[in-house]
């Protein structure tokens, strides 16, 4: 999916509210945007419209209440707005998709991108694994003898 520059900016702020920076990277700094974009092109194609629509509505919501796009809000205001989206209450834009479902999906894919293996295009240096203390220590694969001569 080709997100517009504005959608991408909104997405980055959204995923960074879900996993913000501390002494470990925020979601957008750990490859989560790339992960989500790739997923919406492949396995989550059927959620493409929902995500584009949700990102636009997030900006509509910010415009309706605060007169500026989501990314330009200060942190506490962003969080208050996302709480409203999560609960589906006190919303001012005309939500054409269920806001809670959209937010739930964004939490799920943000977590996936942040905590999954580097082969998925995010978490390239394993930052989240270092943070939580997971080390796979998988050895170099051996040549499996049982496969010799099999079809």
């Amino acid at each position, binding site marked *: 999916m080709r997100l517009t520059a504005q959608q991408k900016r909104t997405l980055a702020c959204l995923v960074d509210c879900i996993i913000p920076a501390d002494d470990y990277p925020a979601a957008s700094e750990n490859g989560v945007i790339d992960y989500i974009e790739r997923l919406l092109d492949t396995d989550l194609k059927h959620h493409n419209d929902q995500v584009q629509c949700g990102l636009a509505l997030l900006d509509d919501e910010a415009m309706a209440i605060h007169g500026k796009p989501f990314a330009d809000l200060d942190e506490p205001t962003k969080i208050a707005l996302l709480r409203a989206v999560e609960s589906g209450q006190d919303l001012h834009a005309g939500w054409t998709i269920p806001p809670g479902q959209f937010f739930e999906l964004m939490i799920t894919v943000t977590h996936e991108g942040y905590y999954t293996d580097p082969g998925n295009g995010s978490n390239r240096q394993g930052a989240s694994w270092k943070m939580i203390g*997971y080390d796979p220590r998988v050895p170099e*694969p051996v040549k499996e003898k049982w496969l010799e001569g099999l079809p």
Partner: protein
Amino acid sequence: VSGLEDGGEFDVVVIGAGCGGIIAAAVLAEAGKTVLLLERGKALAYPQVGRDHLRNHRLATYGHNTGPELDGNPRVIESPDGTVRIARPHEGAYHNNAMTVGGGGRVFGGQAWRFHPRDFRMASEYGVPDGSSLADWPISYEELAPYYERAEWEIGVAGDSNVNPHQGARRRGYPMPPVAPTRQHAVLWRGAHKHGIHTAAAPMLINTVPFDGRAACAQCGMCVGFACASDSKNSSHNTMLPRAIATGRCRLLTQVMVERIETDSKGRAIGVSYFVGDARALARARAVVVSAGAIESARLLLNSASPEHPRGLGNDHDLVGRNLQGHYYPGTFGLFDNPVYDGIGPGVSISTCQFNHGNPGIIGGGMLANEFIKLPIHFCKWAWPTDVPRWGPQAKRWMRDAYTRTIQVMGPVQEIPSPESRVTLDGAVRDRWGIPVARLSGATHPQTVRTAEFMRQCSEQWLRASGAKKLWGRRPTVGLSAGQHQAGTCRMGADPRTSVTDRWGRVHGHENLFCADASLHVTNGGFNPVLTVMALSFRAGEHIAAQL
């Protein structure tokens, strides 16, 4: 049966190169029989199984790593509320078992339990609850014990050879010492000791020392759900398959989809028709062994209906596909003050069999053990407590603080079978070869849920006694259960009116047609079932070889 390519003539055709089928094929080939071993999946090397944390047999969020292909292999799922939908292979509702050479054994964790002697006589021990089809096995633990021993020594199990008072008698110890005790082991051992729970190392189909020409386990943190990088997990594919091939009498064909078992007017199996690509072939045989997993084995018998057996082979009494069961897996997460993670895989190391039987007012029970090392995304998706926010700084802090301080204790519950939990053929939906697909319907018996809730409480008590400060877990609810431990659809028994197969796995009414997989299990034990699948296949292979 005309218009088919000639697939040759063999003593035996074995359908499905999984844990059970490979062993039956190897035992038969070593006994001098010619064997055609047919597998719908591919022989996958380690890199092909891959390391994708979101697409594997443990967590198949967007796909899996073992087959079947996501498209062209649907199943139809009928929920208890009557809604009907199509499931794809990576969805939970599909209840997939790895469809590849090696079957589930290619990607399992490898817990290698014998069933308990009382597991073979559940109806006699507990009575038959209303609405259940609980029954005794036609064979005893003692009859299967020599074959358990063969599986332990010929496939390779690491375990604690000391006497376990909550397990059946064994003539011989294990060929390898148990997996190393981990930090979790030490914590749970202290709690068990305080609480009066007997513990032992969990037996595993894993090399703890070099064995059978393959290296010892590297103790990595990516085990269950994946192939083994050091080829140190033992199953049929890397032990018995090479033995079968080495005889020169076993031919393995992969990416072959069996359509039907062909029978004559007397009900004798004469061969198997199958698809190779889009071509169809017929291989003739003196005996046929079905080892396709409990769901697909039942589907194949039903799809092999003939004029003499219009409801399917072995199905004169409408029993094929019934009593579908798996394992409820209740458990508890416990958060400790200090880290309990030391990164030593596979992770499962301490277990108790004290709650498998003898629980007041409860039918059966199950084994409990600590869990495999969790991938971070598993922990995120499965272990999140409902009272912790899922986003924002607190959520990130949770992952950071809790991952190394959490232990999960869980285990498989012996299910109380229901005849209404079943595999039938869907009347409309077909797979990519045009073969009617499996339709899964019904649910487990409510007594299963009761036992599962009891076991959840046991796991909670063990963790509390071990010092866990925060405990959480989900209460079990009624549903259909099958998954990778699927069993029961061609149950063994003496009476054709209440069973599909006899004490050897021979399909009633078809003297040269056998099953050799967990479809035979009358009940599925409160244990991981693979060692029982293996033992039954050693036994069936010997028996069939003697008959031919």
